């Protein structure tokens, strides 16, 4: 079997490198850390490129990898208490600044989505933003499809409930 060249490899990953970045940013919140995560995981994929063409769905494989990488990153952050406090502070100001440019009401959606439990947040990202099939999400997160649907339904309902609350807040 022939080993992929650099350009062939980049051609394979280019359709989903942005998805990887968005998923990383959803988990890690910080844009910079998400960039680093994407770069690191792409390098991992590159060093395992002989395997990449074996996978039926390299995209789903890449998403699984970046998800695991980001969760590991979060775990290692929890062990470094001082660092996580500092990063949290930075991240919030950054995401806030970024979204102020955007419509104010959309900012709330992002805020509510970020405050969802980890699994619900990720399922919502994978389905409603990245448009993956339930079977794909199930294999990425190592969960069954029913559990995925339940998490998704909860996430969608919670966000809308919070949105109607914030929407009515000024009126009532």
């Amino acid at each position, binding site marked *: 079997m022939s080993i992929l060249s650099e350009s062939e490899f*980049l051609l394979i990953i280019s359709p989903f*490198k942005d998805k990887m970045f*968005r998923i990383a940013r959803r988990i890690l919140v910080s844009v910079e850390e998400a*960039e680093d995560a*994407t770069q690191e995981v792409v390098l991992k994929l590159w060093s395992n490129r002989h395997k990449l063409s074996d996978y039926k769905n390299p995209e789903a494989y890449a998403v699984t990898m970046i998800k695991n990488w980001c969760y590991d990153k979060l775990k290692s952050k929890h062990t470094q208490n001082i660092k996580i406090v500092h990063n949290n502070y930075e991240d919030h100001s950054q995401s806030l600044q970024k979204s102020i440019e955007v419509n104010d009401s959309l900012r*709330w959606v992002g805020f509510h989505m970020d405050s969802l439990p980890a699994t619900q947040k990720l399922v919502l990202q994978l389905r409603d933003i990245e*448009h993956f099939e339930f079977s794909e999400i199930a294999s990425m997160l190592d969960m069954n499809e029913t559990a995925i649907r339940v998490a998704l339904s909860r996430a969608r309902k919670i966000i809308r409930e919070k949105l109607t609350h914030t*929407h009515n807040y000024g009126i009532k």
Partner: protein
Amino acid sequence: MELNKIEDLLEKYNEGVTSLTEEAQLRSYFSQETVPPHLESYKQLFSYFDLDAKQFLPTTIKVGAKNPKKIRWYASAAAALVILFTAFMSITTQKDNLTLSEDELYAYNETLKAFQLISNNMNKSNEALNSLNLISSSIEKGKNKIAMLEKFNISTNKIFKLKTK
């Protein structure tokens, strides 16, 4: 699409049972400018999803070159190595100084003596320079006195001229 069909789809959507195609229909419906007021929160939701899906990786991916973060790490490691090396060298050379042989000690003391001699002579010549300074200031005083004499001279000349007239 009629409103009641959208509402049916939204109900399915909330239960997590819509297909990707149905969700695409919902997205396209909510991408229009105005929706009925009771569906406003759905519009917010779907607009946010559309917006987020347009966020792209800001940096370009490189696989041939080494990760810049790793390069930075190597650079700091190299810098630390250089510092350790210089520290090591300075410590070892200091140890050499402490263990001088007799000849070296003698040479060292002789050099010190020579330096002291030079420094003493320097001080002496400095004193000589001081006396020169003293002379220079006396000369300055003398100059002033001469200037006064000259003034006196001019005045006497004037008197003489007056007298001859």
